[in-house]
Structure formats: C-alpha cells, structure tokens
C-alpha cells in the first residue's frame, strides 16, 4: 500500500505541488493526469525521493520514507525516452538492478532472458540500445524497471514519445506485464488515452493540486469542470440554454448545468427515422476511415461536431439532417447527478 499524505513540494519558494494526497492499493495502477507544468512530474520525483518535501509524507505500508534515500526505496523509475544506459548492452541494462543487488551471475542471466521474453524481445540481450526503435527501448526500460519486482513502479509519460499505433500496442503490453507481475504503479501523463489504457484509478492534477480523482470511468462520466472535460478529450462544453437543449433530449439536467460532448455525441439518423431529436444544417463533411465527420449548425446551439455512418455519398453542405444524441458520449460537467440516476 503506497500513500502520499498531504504532500507539498516547492521550487524556489513557489509551491509546485500543493497538499496532494493519494492512495494506491497494492497491485493497482494509478494515473496522475494533467497538462505540462501542472506539477505531476515533480510529484513523481517527490515520491521517488528525488525532491525534498516541504510538507506531508510519503508512506509505504504505513512507513514514512522521509529518511530513506532514493536508491534504498526499492522503487523503479521509467522515463519517456527510456533513459537506457547507452554504454551497456540491452541485457546488461536489464540486469543492472540485479547486479547492484549482487545476484549470482547465472541467476541474473536467467532472469534477463525471462524478462526479455515477458516484453517480447527474445534474443535482444546483446543488442546496443542505440540500435533499437523507440518502442523497443521502452520495452527494455520496462523490463529493467520490473527486474527486481519494485515495491512501486514510477512511470513518467512512458508512451508519449511513441507514434499513435505503436502507443496503442505498447500500452496493451505494458498493462499486461504490470498486471501479470502484480506490480503497483504510479503513472504520470498528459495523455488521457494513456491513462485510460493503463490505470485502475486516476487523479486529475492542475496548478499543483489534485482537482478530481476516482475510477477512470467515474472521472470520465463526470468531469469536475469545463477545463477538466476538455482535458479528458471532450470536444466541446456547452452551457446555458444550449446545454439545456441538449440535456432535455436525454432527459437530464437543470438550470445552470454544463454539458461536455465528444465529437461523436451527435449521430446523423437515416432519413425517415423517427428518433431524430435535433435538426441541423450540414456545414462541412469529411470521410474518415470508419465514420463520416460532420460539422452541423443547430438552431439555438451553433456549430457542433457530428458523425454519420460511412455512405457512398457524403451529405453536402447546406443539406438538412436529423440528429440523435448518444447518451454515453456526453457528460454533465461539475455534477454527478446524471451518473447517479443512470448507473
């Protein structure tokens, strides 16, 4: 059980992390999600013992780590670009924490083989780190980080330097290895998809503070405010009468609530279908591989994104379409009531 208890960290007298408390049960993955400069990396470094705390405690199984230097905490850090030691081979990199702990040479070699297999890099032991691709480097960094089964794995944007398709595949592998080994992990990232792909719980951080935390689905379903909603990947946040108009369709909301919409929250219904709740005029249409993305103008709301199933002919600008609102692609902002009524 890892715990941050009211932790504050200052840089030159300015608080970079302010009064942050987080609980991380053993075997779980917690993602701290926030824009760059929000203090999340500082928080991670503080957990590792690389930044002095001005207040609060870092606890492992109830034991305060204040007097324990970084190299004795039994944690492991994994960074964005892997930070492999270029002077050592891949195998030596992975075996590094084992050699530090003076494991017998044969045991180290066997464990390195096992770890290489776990991250899907059999036979890479003698390669030089600079000959690897970005994804391979991250796999090696992961193997090195879990080599001695750390009490806590600290991940600093582990996938952010990779391109999209690679990121998805590596995220799945990362998740698999972490759960299979029962590793407790704290992840910081600015990428909500990375957080959703890996985490059991998440905390939104802004300006040095945690503004919201919970299970990813909970946070997703009820962002605490507009900024949080946009950061979580919602496309637009509507308020006032526009919000009421949309919420009325799904039978929710009240005065003064705001609603966050994903780009796919509005769907074009086939002509003649009777579930069209809103009508809009197409302003722009583009075909994406699996869906047609539209911009529609709705009276009283303005321009919004919408999707349509792929068809032979795109709806042209100026064409009027019927739209329905997809319930699980919107969220009421700053109010848990919608989720409460629709479990």
């Amino acid at each position, binding site marked *: 059980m890892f715990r941050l208890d009211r932790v504050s960290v200052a840089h*030159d007298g300015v608080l970079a992390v302010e009064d942050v408390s987080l609980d991380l049960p053993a075997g779980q993955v917690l993602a701290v999600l926030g824009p760059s400069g929000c203090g999340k990396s500082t928080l991670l470094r503080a957990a590792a013992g690389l930044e002095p705390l001005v207040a609060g405690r870092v606890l492992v199984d109830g034991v305060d780590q204040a007097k324990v230097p*970084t*190299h004795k905490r*039994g944690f492991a850090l994994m960074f964005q670009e892997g*930070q492999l*030691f270029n002077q050592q081979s891949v195998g030596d990199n992975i075996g*590094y924490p084992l050699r*530090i702990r003076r494991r017998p040479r044969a045991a180290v070699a066997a464990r390195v083989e096992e770890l290489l297999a776990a991250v899907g890099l059999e036979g890479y032991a003698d390669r030089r780190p600079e000959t690897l691709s970005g994804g391979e480097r991250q796999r090696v960094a992961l193997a090195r*980080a879990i080599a001695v089964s750390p009490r806590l794995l600290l991940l600093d944007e582990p996938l952010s330097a990779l391109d999209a398709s690679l990121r998805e595949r590596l995220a799945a592998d990362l998740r698999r290895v972490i759960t299979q080994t029962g590793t407790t992990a704290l992840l910081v990232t600015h990428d909500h998809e990375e957080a959703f792909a890996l985490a059991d719980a998440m905390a939104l951080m802004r300006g040095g503070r945690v503004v919201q935390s919970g299970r990813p689905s909970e946070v997703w379903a009820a962002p605490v405010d507009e900024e949080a909603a946009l950061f979580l990947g919602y496309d637009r946040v509507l308020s006032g009468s526009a919000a009421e108009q949309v919420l009325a369709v799904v039978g929710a909301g009240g005065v003064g609530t705001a609603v966050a919409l994903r780009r796919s929250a509005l769907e074009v219904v086939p002509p003649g279908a009777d579930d069209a709740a809103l009508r809009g005029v197409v302003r722009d249409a583009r075909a994406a591989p699996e869906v047609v993305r539209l911009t529609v103008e709705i009276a009283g709301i303005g321009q919004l994104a919408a999707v349509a199933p792929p068809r032979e002919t795109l709806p042209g600008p100026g064409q009027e379409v019927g739209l329905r609102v997809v319930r699980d692609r919107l969220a009421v902002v700053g109010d848990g009531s919608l989720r409460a009524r629709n479990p």
Partner: protein
Amino acid sequence: MGLVALAAGPVAVLGVFFVLPVSAMLGLGLWPDGELTLAPALEVLGRERTLRVLGFTVWVSAAATLGTVLLGVPTAFALHRLRIPGARAIRTLLVVPFVLPTVVVGVAFDQLLGEAGPLRFLGLGESPFAIVLAMIFFNLAVVVRTVGGAWESLDPRASEAAAALGATPWQAFRVATFPALRGAIVSAASVVFLFCATAFGLVLVLGGLKHATIETEIYLLTTVLFDLPAAAALCLLQFVVVIGLLAVAQRARRGQVAAQRVAAVRRAVRWPDLPAVVAAAVGAALVVLPIGSLLVRSVRVDGGWSFDNFRRLGVEDPTLPATVVEALGNSLRTAVDATWMAVLLGVTVAVVVTRRSHSRTERRLRGLLDGFFMLPLGVSAVTLGFGFMVALDEPPVNLRDSPLLVPIAQALVALPLVVRTLVPVLAGIDDRQRQAAASLGAGPLRTLATIDLAVVWQPLVAAAGFAFAVSLGEFGATAFLARDDAPTLPVLIFDLLGSPGAHHYGTAVAGAVLLAGVTASVMFLVERLRVPGVGGF
C-alpha cells in the same frame, strides 16, 4: 551540502595559487610603499618603450589573427565539408603546431627564415613578419577545428534551400552559411587574438630584444632589469586586457546557435572549391615547411649530414646545468605531476559546475563558483609565473625550492583545457539517467560510475593527454619558476639558443625535435580517441 564539500578543494587551491599571486602583484604594482598609489603604475604605462611594446603587441596579434582567419576558414571548409583524400591526416597534422612547445616553434621559424635558413632570401629573419607567420602557424588549428566543427554539424538544408531558390553558391554562403558560422568564427578569432597577445616563447626566440610584446617585456623587466613594480604594472594591464578578450569570446559563443548535430556529409570537390583547396594546401605547407626544415636542420652539421646533434643530447656540457636527456626527464616528471593535478582539479570543477541545482540559492552559488573557476583563464602563463615568483617564495606560502612549484603552475595553465573538455560532456548527460539508476538501487558512487564515468572516461583520458602535452611544452610560467639546477626541456632549449657556438644551436634544434616528437606522439594518441571538441574553442 555535497556541493560545498566538493567545491572546497578547488576553491582552496585557487585561493592559494591564484588569488594570492594576483594580490601580490596588485600589492607590488599599486601599493609599492605600503600605500595605494596609481602613480608608479601610470608612470610605467606612460613610458615611451611601454607604449611601443603595447602597440607592437596589438598590431602583431591583429595581423596574425586576420591571417589565421583568412587562411583557416577556407581550410576548415575544405577539410570538413569536402571529400579530399587524406583530409583526416591533414586535420591531424594541423593540430600538431598547436601542441608544439612555443620554444620549438620559435626555433623552427628561426632556422627556416634566419641567416642560414632555406628561406633566408625572403629577408624575414629579423622582421616582425616572422613572428606573425609563426603565430599563424601556431593558431591555424584553433580556427580550423572550431569553425570546421561548426561547419560539419551545420544542417546543409538551409543552403540547399537557398540554392533551390536560385542563389549562387556565393550568395547561398552569405545568406545561409555565414550567419550560422559567424559565432564560431568570432569566437575562434578572439581566442586566436588572445593566444597571440599572450604568446611568449616564440616572440622571445624570434624577436629577441628588438621586438618585444607585453609578455616578453614582463620577462625582461623581471629577469634582466629587476624592475618588479614595472613588471607588476604590465601584468595587471595584461590581466585586464585578457579578461576583456575572454568576455568578447564568451559573448560570441553565446550567440552561437546550438546547431542540431547532423551526420557530416562530405561532397566531392568541384571547380569553385579551388580557392578552398588551395588554402588547405597552403595551410598544410605552412605547417610542414617549418617542421620539415627543423628535422632537416637537426641532422646537418657543418654542411654535411650527421647525427652528432642527437649524439650530444646525452653528453654533459660544463656550460649547461643539465643535458637535454636529463631535462627531458625533468619535463616528463613535471608533466606527470601537473597532469594529475590538473585532472583532479578539473574533474572536481566540472562536476561542481554541471550538477543540477535544486534551489535558487544553490544555482546562484554554482554560478559564482563557475565564474571563480574560470578566473585562471584570465591570466597569461607569464603573469602566472611572475605571480608565483613574487607571492609564493615567502610566508605564508613558501614553495620556492619545492619541486611542486612548477607542476602546480603548469597544472593551472592546463586547467582550463581540462575543464572545457569535460564540462560539455557532463552537461550533456540527461539527469534522468542518474535518477533512473538511483531508483533502480544504485547509490551515489555507483551512479557516478554507471552514468558519468562511462560517458566521461574517454574525454577524460584525452584531456589528461592534452594537459600532459601542454605541460611538457610549457615555457611562459616555467621560465620564471624552473630551478636553475633542474631545467625543463623548453627552458634548456632556450638556454642553448642563447649560448655561443654552432654546436649549441645544433643541440637546441635536436632537442626541439625530440620535444616535438614526444608531444606530437602524445597528441597523436589523444586524436586516436576521437573525442569531439578537444582542442576546439
């Protein structure tokens, strides 16, 4: 607090061996009779001879700097951007003069242009042009290495884009290439000017009493005229000038954009490259000619071929304090001591100034230390030697007869080279590497070994080799400090030059060849390590 402990050593060393000598000089120059007065110093600076010396220093240095840049920039282009067979060998060759002891350079040009030299018909033997040529010879590598390094890592796409827009090669150079290189050129030129203005050995050998620069004047005032207050005043002047030049070089360097390292692509030679190729050839000739003629001269005795000059190297001569071989032994021992001192000090300083600061106070302290450690750069070797002489031979620090005095002075001369080689390497290490190692269980020492040492050992060995070569040839400070009964080889060569008799001159030439051979071998090994940036400024 680790910072304070680590910084304490270098601070103490520099306190004793830099601050003390400088204060002693200040005392001598500005407090001659126990009270502060500028009058004697101003009197010295107002003397007609002083003004002539100052003027001579400036114009010789300016002419040599201009010549070095005009020859060096095209040479840098030819050797770093063109595919020329043997370019690497020529690049290595060009560095040789830079590590040649100044005395050797003096001897080489003296016998090349002098009364009996193969180029005596030029009539340059006694003229200042001999000094200018020798300075260009000496500093060409600085420009070629600095500018060539920048040129090599220059992204060629900027000038390709200019060419695609219709620019002629010359226009493309002016628009795209030159602005990117200006920082490197200005920086190299200011360093060359600095080296020229503080050149000592070669001016002393080539100029004699006739042509004096500030440096040789300090030496004459001290050792011949015993006018210490006047020498101190000139030292202070030199100190101020050098600091000013360093500031200029620093500014120029800051203007340099950190060019993205791109793999050097060398292209085939085309006709418009002819001037650059010719410049490279002239540069190579300028280097080969004096060295070659020095070699030839060393095996000529009385108009015939003979190894007598070399045979005499080990033979005792009652008019000299030591044989050349003994002096070489002194030089090697001194250089070993100077090298470990410079390396120990340089590593500590480099670590102190490159470690990540955690707070503003720490950052400020580190900035102060950084500035303090760079101060020795501001003294010429002669000033340092003079300062040691007047400050360290009486309490509180009396090292007059200590065998460590010369090595310490040489270590301070070599220190900036070591620091400048190591700092970029250490600063280039991503601190997260250290954090990753620490989080994986590595203690501070283990982290140092895994991360820093693994990256730095090669540059460290190179810097040590460089420091060793510099110490071997060091003459400016050593000339003031070497004990009469234990001269280093450069000091003995200078003595030989001043001794009457053709056989003494022959021995000096042979000794110069020996010294050049040893330092060049050391530098050859350093070059084999292929550390970028060593010897570049």
